[in-house]
């Protein structure tokens, strides 16, 4: 591979409308930020400009780590992605499995209205993707082993759109697998039920709903521009401010707003927190959590943490066994020694 090809590959996400940091979405996020600050927050254009391009944010130590991770993780991804199970493999497996039941037969609804089927598929794909993101994200927070990896992302103390790439490669793999499973399930069930009329409504090659999510300023989720929605809307869609709150060090914000695009899941499962316009938020892990500080830390520390968790648990188990045998000493079980 030529160096230019490698370079292009590294930067390809900026020109791929399937990715959040596609230049078009970044540009639109920028416009939304200006409109928000000038028209809603009544800032002067100059002030808004200074606030958006705050060099303390974009050149902070945290942001500089993000930029480095962007490149290193891309290299990891190039190496690892060919090894991961693909959505086609999962879809084929499920498609085969669907032939083993006799309730619905292959192509049973193939005479359904195509517009309806395509709309339903586009919506189902979006919902399945968002729903699995919610749950995986929730688990990343709730399970100590997964949290060890996810802490890398939450160790960001300033946020820029590139922070979306501040993740441990292990988390990247989990998200990739999640996506393969979600796509595999939806694709196979739709093709089985509706046959070859299944299609996706797209704009610039992207699921129309994903496109609108990005167009609505998805990049502002990882930024210091705090845009909140009306309360009712924050029950349906996660606003940038709600996601920023998810990154807050404050105790009352912990384990809230796991959702990606939809807030419905947080609302349903009790983790929703509406945005708070007047509150200043400090991003990061806070004082109680020890997070990674250097690039090396970002990759190694999660494993050390996991080792710590496992040893602690093993100790606990041992202690438990030891205690239980103390409670019932051998001699007692058979009565007093004669």
């Amino acid at each position, binding site marked *: 591979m030529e160096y230019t090809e490698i370079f292009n590959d590294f930067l390809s*996400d900026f020109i791929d409308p*399937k*990715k*959040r940091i596609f230049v078009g979405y970044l540009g639109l996020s920028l416009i939304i930020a200006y409109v928000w600050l000038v028209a809603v927050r009544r800032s002067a254009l100059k002030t808004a400009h200074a606030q958006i391009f705050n060099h303390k944010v974009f050149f902070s130590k945290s942001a500089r780590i993000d930029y480095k991770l962007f490149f290193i*993780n*891309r290299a990891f*991804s190039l190496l*690892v*992605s060919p090894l*991961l199970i*693909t*959505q*086609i493999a999962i*879809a*084929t497996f499920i*498609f*085969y499995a669907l*032939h*083993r*039941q*006799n309730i619905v*037969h*292959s*192509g*049973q609804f*193939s*005479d359904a209205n195509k517009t309806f089927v395509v709309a339903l598929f586009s919506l189902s*794909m979006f919902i399945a993707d968002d729903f699995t*993101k919610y749950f995986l*994200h929730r688990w990343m927070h709730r399970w100590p082993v997964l949290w060890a990896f996810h802490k890398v*992302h939450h160790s960001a103390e300033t946020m820029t759109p590139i922070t*979306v*790439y501040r*993740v441990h490669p292990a*988390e*990247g793999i989990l*998200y*990739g697998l*999640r*996506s*393969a499973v979600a*796509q*595999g399930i939806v*694709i*196979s069930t*739709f*093709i089985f039920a509706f*046959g*070859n009329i*299944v*299609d*996706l409504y*797209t704009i610039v*090659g992207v*699921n129309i709903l994903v496109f609108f999510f990005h167009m609505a300023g998805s990049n502002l*989720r990882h930024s210091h521009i705090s845009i909140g929605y009306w309360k009712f809307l924050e029950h349906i869609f996660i606003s940038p401010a709600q*996601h920023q709150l*998810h990154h807050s060090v404050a105790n009352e914000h912990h384990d809230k707003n*796991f959702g*990606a695009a939809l807030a419905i899941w947080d609302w349903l499962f009790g983790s929703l927190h509406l945005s708070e316009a007047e509150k200043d938020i400090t991003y990061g892990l806070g004082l109680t959590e020890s997070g990674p500080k250097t690039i090396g830390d970002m990759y190694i520390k999660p494993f050390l943490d996991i080792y710590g968790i496992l040893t602690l648990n093993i100790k606990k188990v041992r202690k438990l066994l030891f205690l239980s045998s103390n409670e019932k000493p051998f001699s007692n079980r058979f009565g007093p020694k004669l």
Partner: protein
Amino acid sequence: MLKNILKYSTIMGALVLPISLVHAGGHSTGYGPFPVTLQGYSGDKDNSVSYSGQVARHVLHDSLKVLAGRGDGGANSATLKAEMLSYFSGSDKNKAILAPVTKGAFVIKQGTLNEISSGKNIEGKFYNGAMMAWPGSMKGREVALHMIDRASIANKGVDAENGYNWPQLISKFTMGAMAYSQAVDNYLDEKLEANTKPNNKPYKDGKPYTGKEHVWDEGFGYFGAAAHTLSLTADQAYGIAKRKDMASADVNGDGVVDLKSEMVFGPAYYAAAFDRSGTKSTSYLQTIMQAYFDGRQLITSAKGAVLTNAQRSSLKAHASTIESKWEQVLAEAVFKYAGSAYKDINKMQEDDADVAKEYKGYVKHWGELKGFSMALQSGRNNLGETAGTMNDLILFGPVTLDNSYVTDVTSSGDFKREKRMTWNDYQLQLLKVQQLMVDKFSVASRVNDQLADLGALAEMLGDQSNAETD
């Protein structure tokens, strides 16, 4: 002035025309004529190419297929069977060509078999190894004779109860058990060895061709391609086989299609059919034809001398190309008709389906699937486990309307259907047949790919390996 221009243009025309003709002749890509290279030949022939026996066998096969569909349910069975056997096993009588025959402007030169070649049959050149794909543990020829017997008592060639379409089964099986088998397991195999039919002797005394020239020509004849195939597109070759494209067929412009050199028969037709459909990424017809052509040129270039080991090994390399591509064509056919049968099952289950009509289509497609799967097992290669898996998946007969399928055959040749399978389960097996063809034969044209839609949607949704996280 004008007169001068006219004069010069006439002179130029008179000069250019023969030059262009010579030019065209010098770069002929037709399979023949090739010069006589046999040393010491004293006859008057100037063309050493001959494969009319193979053309006759293609015609016997096409005609047999027509006869297999002429049963009236029993009343004419004795005469029909005798008629079919006269084409399959041969007879002294000159027989009419039942197919291919003239169709509209597509006028065929020959009307009887003896106008092509006399005394030929199919049976003598039919694969006779074990054929495990058919119930009753029979050998290849026994299976063919069993099929002929059943076709003679069927109604218009169809045994709806057991799910057999005899014209399709007989035809597709024969395309492999005769044409493919003879080419790859005989002429392009042991007959290329040094001590068999050497190139410094006539194939038979008095013939104008050498041993190796004729061996190669016979191998080519079984492929069933028109001699001018290298100048044809897959669409044109397809059009000739379908008797629609007279302009492409009649290369010598005599107003008739000579079956001996201008027609496209079964094996070449299927090669063309897959090149022009599916993913359109294959070039089976041209690759196979080029290998035949290059092989023949190599033999001609030896000028009647014994082929050196190097020449024979290059000839074998061409033979190997022919064999592997031809095998792939048969696998593509298995792939395609497994997909057709899968789709037919869906159609039969639709609420407003005309089940009888759809079932007829299903039985026809299944016949093609089964016939081609048997063809694939008639070559030089012992497919071993692949054949076993394929036969287990396709079954001895299709799942019929009451979900039963043929499991065995009695000593009197009747079928027994002692097991049942759901449509869904059988569809899964057909999907696995398609996967098997991909895994074992790397089929690329993939007509009727039942998993293609999964792949297309996955492609559309994109690679998520570096999925964003929040």
